[in-house]
Structures are given as C-alpha cells and as structure tokens.
C-alpha cells in the first residue's frame, strides 16, 4: 500500500456500479439460488400435477368449474403452478433486505453507498430483473407443459388472443410480488415478520375480504395487491372482474410503490 495515493476527487460512482455490486450480492448467497430452484420446481411440478389431475378427473368435475377452465385456460394453468411457488419469491424478496439487517451487512452496504435512495433502488432493480426473467421463463415453461397436458380437454395456444400477454404477465406478477415483499422486508427489517406479513397480504387477506358482504367486499377484494396484480396473468377481463388486466397490475404497482416509498423514508430516518 502506498502512502501517497490521494483518492481521486472524482465523480460519484455511477448507478451501473451499484447494479453490478447488487448482482454480486444476490448471486453469491446460497439461499438465493435455492429459493429460485424451489420456485422453478414448485411451479413446473404443480402445473404438471394439477393439469394431469384436471384432465384425469375432467368427467367428474362440476360443469361450473369446467366452464372456468374453458373460459380462461391460460390463467388456470399459470395459477396452478403459481399458487404455491409464488411464496418462494416472497421469501426471497423479503430476505434480500432482511438478511442484510439480521447479519449487519446493511452497515457495510451503507458505508459503501451512504446515500440511501440509490442503495435501495439498485437492490430493487436487480432483484426485480432477476425475478422478472425467471418468472417469465418459468411461466412460459409451465404454460407449454400445462397446455400440452390440458390439450386433451381444452385447446389453448400461445397465439390465441391475450395468451402471450397473460403468460408474460405471470413473470410480471412475480417480479412485482418480489418487490412488494422486498418493500415489506425493508419496513419491518425482520425476516420472519416480513415473510409473515407478505403471506398475510397474499394468502390470508384475500379470502377474508371475500367474506365481507356485498359490493364493499368485492371492491376491497379487487383492490388487494396480489388479487389485482394477478389479473395481468388473465387473458381477458371476465364478468365479475372490476379491473382490466393492466389496471389490476397498475393497482399492484401503486401498492408496491407506496410501500417502497415508506421503506425509503424509514431507511433514511432510522439508525442502521
């Protein structure tokens, strides 16, 4: 080490460098890789399983249930894989930030990048891209597997109206859900609490809201984050949907943006 190297007064490091650093962070922790593998396995596995059951039990299925499958087979295929595997992205999204708090890594991160906004932004961008790429890939794989199995009863092709958008929407949904979980993780800072909170939002609130009477219940239900967000994975707006696919996704994005804003304010205010 030489004594005389005075740091170049220079420029602030660009945002690109922060993205590279966050990419290193995300790929160098084993739990990330495992979460993603679990996501793929669960998604593809459950799609295959559900589709096989659906076809096998087709004749014993209620007419109304069958009608749902026929109305939007794409959404049904995607949903069968997603219902459980989405939890992996919730866990991963929350842990991307809570693991920094629980291990103290956040202090090293803030020493390197003391400005909170770019630090959190870089984390969000990298994680969202990872979730998006993986989500789109896994959605397409699941769709092709699912539609091939379902073909015996219901025919659906990627070229049908709205299908390509809906399948891509599966990936978009996962990416936004991941960010949503990251925001909650950044707010509560504890892994278990964050995951519980996200799962509460995604899995628990929705059936609860459905119990509410009348149109109030319907509206609340429609505007719940995951509920609204999932519309992007439907080929078209069906009767009873209050929002179009893109409107739904917009609602999900607003939820996420608000939570991220809260997370950022807290990150700036709180001691690390």
């Amino acid at each position, binding site marked *: *080490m*030489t*004594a005389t*190297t*005075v*740091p*170049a*007064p*220079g*420029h*602030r*490091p660009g945002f690109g*460098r*922060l993205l*590279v*650093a*966050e990419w*290193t*962070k995300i790929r*160098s*922790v*084993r*739990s990330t890789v495992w979460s993603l593998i679990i996501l793929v396995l669960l998604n593809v596995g459950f799609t295959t399983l559900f589709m096989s059951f659906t076809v096998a039990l087709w004749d014993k299925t209620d007419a109304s249930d069958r009608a749902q499958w026929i109305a939007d087979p794409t959404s049904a295929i995607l949903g069968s894989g997603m219902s459980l595997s989405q939890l992996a992205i919730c866990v991963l999204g929350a842990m991307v930030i809570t*693991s*920094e708090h629980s*291990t*103290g*890594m*956040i*202090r*090293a*991160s*803030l*020493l*390197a*990048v*003391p*400005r909170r906004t770019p630090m959190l932004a870089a984390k969000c961008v990298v994680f969202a891209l990872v979730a998006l790429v993986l989500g789109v890939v896994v959605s397409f794989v699941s769709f092709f597997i699912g539609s091939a199995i379902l073909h015996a009863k219901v025919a659906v092709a990627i070229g049908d109206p709205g299908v390509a958008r809906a399948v891509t929407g599966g990936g978009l949904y996962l990416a936004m859900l991941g960010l949503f979980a990251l925001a909650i993780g950044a707010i509560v800072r504890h892994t278990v609490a964050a995951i519980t909170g996200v799962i509460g939002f995604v899995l628990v609130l929705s059936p609860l809201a459905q119990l509410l009477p009348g149109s109030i219940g319907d509206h609340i239900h429609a505007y719940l984050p995951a509920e609204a967000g999932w519309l992007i994975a439907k080929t078209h707006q069906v009767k009873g949907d209050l929002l179009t696919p893109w409107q739904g996704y917009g609602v999900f994005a607003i939820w996420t943006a608000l939570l991220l804003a809260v997370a950022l304010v807290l990150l700036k*205010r709180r*001691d*690390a």
Partner: protein
Amino acid sequence: MTIWATPRGTFVIEARNLTKRYGETLAVNDLSFTVEPGRVTGFLGPNGAGKSTTMRLLLGLDHPHGGDATIDGKHYQDLTRPLEVVGALLEARAVHTGRSAYHHLLCLAQTQGIGKRRVGEVIDLVGLPSVAGKRAGGFSLGMGQRLGIAAALLGNPRVLILDEPVNGLDPMGIVWIRTLMKRLASEGRTVFVSSHLMNEMAVTADHLIVIGRGKLVADCSTEEFIERASDQAVLVRSPDAERLGEAIALEGGKVTPDGDGVLGVAGMEPARIGELASAGRFVLHELAPKRSSLEEAFMELTRDSVEYRAGGAA
C-alpha cells in the same frame, strides 16, 4: 489541548457537540473532539461509554440528536467515494454470514469501481487467502476481524475508523494490527481506534481521547496521560512512615500519606525510595510499584462515568 485550524483536504475527523439519546439514556453527551492525521488517536472509555455510538455517528449510520460530525470537512453521506476516503471497522459484525469473504469484499469494491486485483491484495494483506472462498458465517472472531479490516482497507483510505480492532485477535494478530495502525499513521493517514483497554492504547496510540458516559474526560497525548497517571506510582509501608515520608519529600518525591503506615509516593523510583530508607535506617514492610497504574488511572478518571459496575465491590 491543542486546537488549530483544519484546512480542507487534511482528512481531519471532527465531532462538534455530538449528542445521541437512546430512549432515556444519553449515549453521547455534547461531545466535541478533533482527530488529526499522521498519528494513531486512541478512543478510550469503559464499556458502554458511547465509543461505538460516536463512531457510528461519524460514519452516518446513526443520526445524532444534536451536533455535527464531519470527516475532511464533509458529512459522511456527502463523500463521493466513501471507501476511498474512510475505511471503517465496526464493532458489531457487518458481513452477510452466507457470503464468502471474497464476494463480500468484491460487492463492496464494485460499488466504487475498485478492481478485483485490489480485493486480492487486501485478502493477502490481512492473511485470509486460504479461507477467502469460505462462507463468512463460519469464521472465528479473529478471522471476522481480519475480514473487517480487509474491507476497511479496500479503498486505500486516508482515514481509518476502527472500533475495538484487537477484539478476538490472538497475540500475533494483536501485534500485527498494532504495527499496521502505526504504519498507516506514519504514512500520514488519520487513524482513530477505539478500545476499552488502557494498556492496549498505551502501546498503540500517540494521542488519546477518553470518554465516559458519553462525555469527554480527557483529550491529550498518550505521554501526558501516562505522566498524569503515574502519580502515586509507588506504595510504601513502613512503621516509620512519617519520618520516611519526610525524607522522601526532602528528595523531591511527592508523598501522600494514606494512614496506617502507608504512603503513596509519586515522582520517585522505588529503588531510590529503598536507598533513602536504608540511609535513614527506616524499616520497610512493603515497597511496591503500583501495578497497572495506567489501568487504575483510567479507572480513576472514568470512575464516575462507568455504566456497568459489578455489585458488591463497593
């Protein structure tokens, strides 16, 4: 205490009236000091005195309730390439347990565009090359310290802020970090290092900033502190304490009678006291240099400001 102007670009650490509360407790209480480059400045205080909090305030990790902390005239947040200006080792670990040492350093380096070569260099420098690929969660306390020091040195910074760096290091590691800190200071860097061990600081630091209960207790050179501390350095017990004391005083020793035939003597070597006793034919029952007088002076100095004390001692 010397105060002189601190022109910009001199990499001085400055705390002005820093105050930090945790609930009811005042962790840092109106604390002001300056840390100059080119020497090792020890930051000394008992556990819970507010050393780590002060350092976190300097580094912009915690927010003060009052006052201001700057490094090279800037708030930490406003440093454009912070790792190239300040290298910090925090007391609490700041490493993801699931990440390898190499990747930990790499992701920090990448934020400022520091190359992979430098990552390899600091790994070699702290002696971790054999475990660089292993998960940091499995590291011993000493290895964790070395990794933290590697992270601090990544950007070849002009200012080092090290919180209890000898914690968990083996004797060889302690000698290594002492040598390293002295070398960094001799290269003109600003080295600010905290410890709760007076003796450790006595051999490492050129200058001392001593705090207790979040307040400044002393800000002086280590030499001056030791000089002040070596008051009452010899304990003398004699049945002729009174007359022996007179003889010692006559020779320039500073005598503090402690009753019961006990004298505290400052400013005179035990050997000389023995000679005086022999010359005057005084019986000596005890002639003992007070051991770890530095540690005692430190305790004396911070007695009123110790937060945690073992019960029953009083």
